[in-house]
């Protein structure tokens, strides 16, 4: 050992021998550390083995403890030992000399330091210390084993102890190993392939404009604020194709604020304009919107126009026609062929629809009765989701009128009975509407229920105005009576006789309420309508895009 003088020592480096263990913990003692490494025997065995692995168990008493592995690696380290030496027994001469030299050094003694070892190898624990799965039973067993080890051997061989241990062993389940890998590895993830989406050639307008637009599709009927008018001229360059198309569609909405898609499409085709479905949708989305429910369901409505507040929008309301069940085979046959009618012909009752259900707009229908009814003053002050501006009676009457008109143009035999039944029902509904309007004048009622209904309606002051309108309706009725009289002569006697034979009871009821001439007038009117429409020839059918 060399004494440190002025912080300096010198010597010769020793031979390389021994090894270091970079222990990944702070053991209470070296002996405990050796135990966790498996003891001297295990360390020697590890030194001789080829795997170069040194096992470390943090809880050596637990048989299920998962070990951490230390890896042997070359290193170049020196061990410096520093120690303090007591001064030798005091001698008179030495004491005198030391006291004269340095009093403090004499008290403290001298420090010695030397490099005592050189280590060429060391164990490093770079692996992961697995989660130490501790089960209470394991802890108890470990504690028990410790006691047995410390206590006398007699207790160790006690039968009770063995039985308890065996009983607990049955409950012990080997805990799962959390990770199959001991050493962490770097995973290189494959880069995600970016799929390039091709833009549609129709995408001419900048996307920010359409993204900023408020929603226009399937708006709820009870929404408070409808979409506002948009100045589309700012976003589309003037003179371009988009500009021309948008101008045409915009003008159509200026003339008529609510359009059904079928009517709009056919009109555009008649003007010689043809484009894809998505293009039309974009043109419409810029200047119009549609509701998801209500009397204008899926009709395109001009932005800024609220049909719920304008009673004049009643003429643009929607109504559905459904083909009777016995006649649906006709629709099935034609749907297979995929042949189509012109929308104009469907609305003019010149052809029978090929679809089970057709959405129609009042404004498009070519029928005197329907047009006269929808142009009357509004029945109610507010627009409802169920029937819009009209009463349920009127809606039923118009729907029955649709039934009569379409059945009369059914091209195949088999609809005669349905037509007669529909006609009778229509007449009945019409009389009920007429009677309903008449009762508003305060006439006597024949049934108690009707009387109650009349009383309820009389409470509403606005109904009185409608009653006055009812008088106008009566005058129109008389006009129809006069017009019908002129066509009395052309009535075929055969059809008249058949009609009379099938409905004698109904005729008797009519006699009670109305004069006999009225019956003839209705029948003659129907025939007159047929004769009148025979003048027009069927136009050639053109294909138009459906919804």
């Amino acid at each position, binding site marked *: *050992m060399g004494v*440190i003088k002025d*912080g*300096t*020592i*010198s*010597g*010769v*480096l020793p*031979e390389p*021998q*021994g*090894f*270091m*263990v*970079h*222990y*990944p*913990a*702070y*053991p209470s003692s*070296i002996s405990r*550390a*050796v135990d966790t490494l498996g003891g*001297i025997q295990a*360390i*020697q065995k590890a*030194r001789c083995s080829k795997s170069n692995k040194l096992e470390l168990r943090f809880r050596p008493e637990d048989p299920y403890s998962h070990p951490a592995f230390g890896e042997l690696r070359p*290193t*170049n*380290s*020196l*061990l*410096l*030992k*520093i*120690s*303090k*030496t*007591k001064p030798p027994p005091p001698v008179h001469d030495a004491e005198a000399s030391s006291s004269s030299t340095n009093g403090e050094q004499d008290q403290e003694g001298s420090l*010695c*330091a030397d*490099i005592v*070892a050189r*280590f060429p190898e060391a164990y490093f*624990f770079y692996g992961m210390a697995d989660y130490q799965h501790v089960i209470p039973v394991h802890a108890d067993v470990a504690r028990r084993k410790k006691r047995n080890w410390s206590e006398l051997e007699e207790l160790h061989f006690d039968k009770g102890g063995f039985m308890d241990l065996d009983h607990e062993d049955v409950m012990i389940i080997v805990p799962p190993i959390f990770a199959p890998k001991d050493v962490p590895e770097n995973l290189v993830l494959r880069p995600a392939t970016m799929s390039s989406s091709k833009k549609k050639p129709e995408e001419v307008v900048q996307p920010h404009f359409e993204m900023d637009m408020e929603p226009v599709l399937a708006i709820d009927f009870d929404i408070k604020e409808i979409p506002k008018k948009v100045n589309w001229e700012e976003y589309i360059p003037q003179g371009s194709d988009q500009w021309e198309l948008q101008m045409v569609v915009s003008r159509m909405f200026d003339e008529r604020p609510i359009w059904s898609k079928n009517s709009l499409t056919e009109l555009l085709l008649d003007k010689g304009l043809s484009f894809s479905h998505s293009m039309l949708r974009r043109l419409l989305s810029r200047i119009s919107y549609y509701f998801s429910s209500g009397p204008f369901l899926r009709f395109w409505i001009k932005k800024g126009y609220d049909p719920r507040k304008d009673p004049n929008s009643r003429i643009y309301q929607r109504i559905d026609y459904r083909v009777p069940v016995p006649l649906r085979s006709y629709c099935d046959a034609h749907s297979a062929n995929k042949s189509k009618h012109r929308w104009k012909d469907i609305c003019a009752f010149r052809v029978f629809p090929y679809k089970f259900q057709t959405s129609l707009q009042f404004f498009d229908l070519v029928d005197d009765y329907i047009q006269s009814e929808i142009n009357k003053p509004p029945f109610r002050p507010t627009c409802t989701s169920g029937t819009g501006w009209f009463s349920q009676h009127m809606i039923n009457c118009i729907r029955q009128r649709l039934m009569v008109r379409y059945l009369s143009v059914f091209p195949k035999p088999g609809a005669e009975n349905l037509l007669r039944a529909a006609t009778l029902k229509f007449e009945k509904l019409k009389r009920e509407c007429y009677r309903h309007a008449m009762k508003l004048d305060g006439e006597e009622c024949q049934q108690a229920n009707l009387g109650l209904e009349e009383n309820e309606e009389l409470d509403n002051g606005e109904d009185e105005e409608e009653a006055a309108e009812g008088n106008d309706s009566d005058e129109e009725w008389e006009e129809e009576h006069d017009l019908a009289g002129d066509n009395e002569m052309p009535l075929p006697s055969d059809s008249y006789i058949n009609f009379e034979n099938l409905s004698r009871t109904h005729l008797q009821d009519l006699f009670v309420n109305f004069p006999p001439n009225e019956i003839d007038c209705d029948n003659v009117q129907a025939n007159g309508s047929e004769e009148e429409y025979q003048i027009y020839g069927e136009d050639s059918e053109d294909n138009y895009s459906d919804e």
Partner: protein
Amino acid sequence: MEANAASHDHEDQDEYVLLNLDGVSDLIDIPPNAKYVLTGLDTLNPVLIIDDKFKLIGEYEETIGTCIAFTEQEAAVVHEETGPSEVNIFSGTRLIDSSQAPTTQVKPVCQLHKVLKFKLSPDSEIQNVTAKEAK
């Protein structure tokens, strides 16, 4: 040996520091039985001069966990030293066995928590000057 034993008796406390030369083991080749001079032990950066050629500057670090030093010794030597004449024959047999499968005894020496990490001094002229001064 006696001197060592005497000094061992006088020792009260022993403190160990690991001198880590891994940073410079690729740069220098330490010959066996090389002389060393360790200066500045009372400073934060001791200087280690090996064989009057290489000057290394040290810096203290703390270990992650604990460093435990083990030494290895051959067991046959111990047996040979301690055996009487009769047992010598057995020792001879063991010597033959040990030559086939050498067994070593592992013995823990100490545990430490201080590491002195050394790196080569960039200025070589200073080395020569210091070496001359040492001489």
